[in-house]
């Protein structure tokens, strides 16, 4: 992730494959860790922490989707559906059985993974646009099922209220308390994915993305690995759903609609497909964009527009910016924010001898 290669010589393959190959990277990670462990919770206001918390949740989901779409090349417009599967699984376990968070979260993920595998089965036969629409269909079918099976949804309101998670007897309710809880899962997702992508499975995913028939010829069981990708990706989505549920206090399928699925796709595209760091950037960017637009316009737009115009302008400009940025990144910088970051990084890569 962090590079300044000057003076570093690798003497084994293991060193080359290491997660953090360079000493400077270790220092950088340490710095970032200190920032997120101390600076953020101590300096940020509750409101900013709320934003950061939403980013942390989005990071888990975005990385999950990136595993499927960015690394394995299988597009999904149905991740909102997997999130609601995770959310309702956990909510039912929590409310009916009083299951603690450390069981509810993986349980939500596993159920979502199971559904993900079922949705992924057609990926053997169909691809591209057909698969995209099949995943979209799965989203509708999941929503319909939750809406109509009260055994799952807990009643006609289809909302299940969930008590806050308690860690060692502590109830986590305020943004400050939830911050560390969510940070833990976001970091777990990042580290797990970085490791996964260095493994045999990760390499198989990338082979399938780059050329699936060729991957099959060199002996990768495409079907099995595609299902792995669907399972792992929807596991992350399920976990994201549970985190949302804990964070918002309710499980509600209406908040996991197509727009959410598209939002997550936008995150990984703007961040840069097939990159964990890109997914993190994208999650932060898309979560903060509406807020930034609003704050900017309400504080500086007054010069040009009346308050009334600004109220109409803000949400619609956010839409336009959101859509426009997706198009912009696709055309101008397909590798997304991650590429911009690498450009900066490459400058320092051979520093101080960067000529």
């Amino acid at each position: 992730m962090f590079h300044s290669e000057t003076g570093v010589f690798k003497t084994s393959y293991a060193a080359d494959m290491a997660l953090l190959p360079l000493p400077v990277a270790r220092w950088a990670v340490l710095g970032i860790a200190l920032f997120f462990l101390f600076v953020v919770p101590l300096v940020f206001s509750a409101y900013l922490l709320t934003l950061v918390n939403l980013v942390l949740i989005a990071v888990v989901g975005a990385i999950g989707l990136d595993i499927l779409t960015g690394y394995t090349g299988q597009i999904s417009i149905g991740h909102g559906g997997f999130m609601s599967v995770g959310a309702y699984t956990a909510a039912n376990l929590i409310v009916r059985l009083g299951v603690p968070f450390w069981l509810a979260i993986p349980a939500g993920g596993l159920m979502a993974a199971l559904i993900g595998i079922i949705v992924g089965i057609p990926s053997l036969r169909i691809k591209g646009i057909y698969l995209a629409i099949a995943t979209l269909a799965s989203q509708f079918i999941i929503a319909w099922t939750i809406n109509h099976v009260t055994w799952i949804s807990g009643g006609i309101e289809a909302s299940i209220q969930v008590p806050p998670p308690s860690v060692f007897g502590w109830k986590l309710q305020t943004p400050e308390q939830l911050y560390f809880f969510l940070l833990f899962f976001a970091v777990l997702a990042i580290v797990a994915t970085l490791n996964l992508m260095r493994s045999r499975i990760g390499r198989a995913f990338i082979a399938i993305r780059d050329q699936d028939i060729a991957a099959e010829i060199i002996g990768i069981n495409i079907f099995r690995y595609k299902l792995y990708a669907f399972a792992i990706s929807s596991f992350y989505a399920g976990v994201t759903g549970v985190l949302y549920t804990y964070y918002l206090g309710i499980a509600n399928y209406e908040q996991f609609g197509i727009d959410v699925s598209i939002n997550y796709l936008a995150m990984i595209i703007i961040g840069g497909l097939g990159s964990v760091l890109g997914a993190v950037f994208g999650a932060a960017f898309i979560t903060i964009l509406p807020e930034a637009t609003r704050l900017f316009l309400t504080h500086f737009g007054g010069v040009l527009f009346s308050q009334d115009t600004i109220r109409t302008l803000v949400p619609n400009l956010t839409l336009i910016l959101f859509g426009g940025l997706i198009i912009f990144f696709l055309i101008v910088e397909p590798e997304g924010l991650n590429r911009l970051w690498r450009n900066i990084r490459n400058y320092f890569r051979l520093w101080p001898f960067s000529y």
Partner: protein
Amino acid sequence: MAIAFAGLAQAEDKTILIGMQCDRTGPTQVVGTMLCPGTHDYIDLINSQGGVDGWKIDASEVDTAYQVPPAVEEYEHAKQQGAVGIMIYGTPQTEALNQRLEQDKMPGTSPGFGIAASGDGQYYPYLFPIAANYWSQGAAAVKFAKDQLGGSLKGKKIAYIFYDNPAGHEPMPVIEELSKVEGFQLQTFAVPPPGVDVSSQVLAIAQEYRPDFVIDHTFGKSPALIIKGLKQNGYPLTHVVALVWASGEADIMGAGGWSVAQGYNTMQFAGAGEDYPVIKEIQAMYKKEGKEPPAAMKSTVYYNRGVQQGALWVAAIKNALTLTHGQKPTPTDVKKGFEMIHDFTLGGLNAPLTITADDHEGGGWVKIFRVKDEGFVPETQWFRAYRDLIVDREHKTAQQMAKAN
């Protein structure tokens, strides 16, 4: 940067801040773009008259696009900026914020949507529906049908056509219960989202089931299509009553205009039309400033609901200021202020609303306006129906909820 902004907003003197969530984009945008200007205009009107006891009101609006995470984010933002309460928009958003309201002791309003049981002020101390909830609306619709059909529903057939989402399901248990009480036959017809085609449901109602009365609880595109479809199938629109979110000008326009919708009964929790003193005052304010009144004002149903929302908040703050003797009220003061609202009519735009610590719904009043010529004409007075049954249900549900948590 954001920290600096927050500081700026707080620095203004003698301002009382209310968080305001809107839906100017997203699936329910037709409502938000009309409703929110109403709230702002009323608050501007009060401010232009010197505010409430010298305090200016600031409704800080955010668009949530009907999504929950931004609603939570904005709630936290408003709370941090020192808001005395929050105007919520949307049922899932209300459910998500409910726990937080209680925890932070912040009053929040959910007029005409949200958690039906939250009319019970004992179990939902900080949530204020401040208008007829879905149960009251369903009960009122049955009562209206009963009156229209000559005072008895025995052996009659009623069709309930609903948007197939949680909010659409909400009135169903009440109507089902009433079908046993009143002895009518009930059949339900679901309109699944996105509801851009309802022709087969309409055919099933008008051609096959042929009910004596239709209760329409749909949103978005569907109400307009139902009006048009029933009309084309020769079903009398005078025997259709729409709950509050199928009762706007947009629905009439979508159906093809006033001429198509003649006789259609709309249920309102704020008066429809422009003929109210407060609307005249707002128009006068715009005239004085030399500006055109906003286009949203023509959409009287939603606009007036916005005005009503603003007015109820102003009334609550006014009450709170009597409690604090003119000092800046806390959110809890505003909560108490809401519970002091008594017989508040806003010159006829509002039902005679009385909110108490027990009853946050304010009585569950509605009024039916019928489409006649080029507008809405009152068909009934403000009324409510089967009140005991509704209140009983609110209590029972609230108790269950309390036990579950």
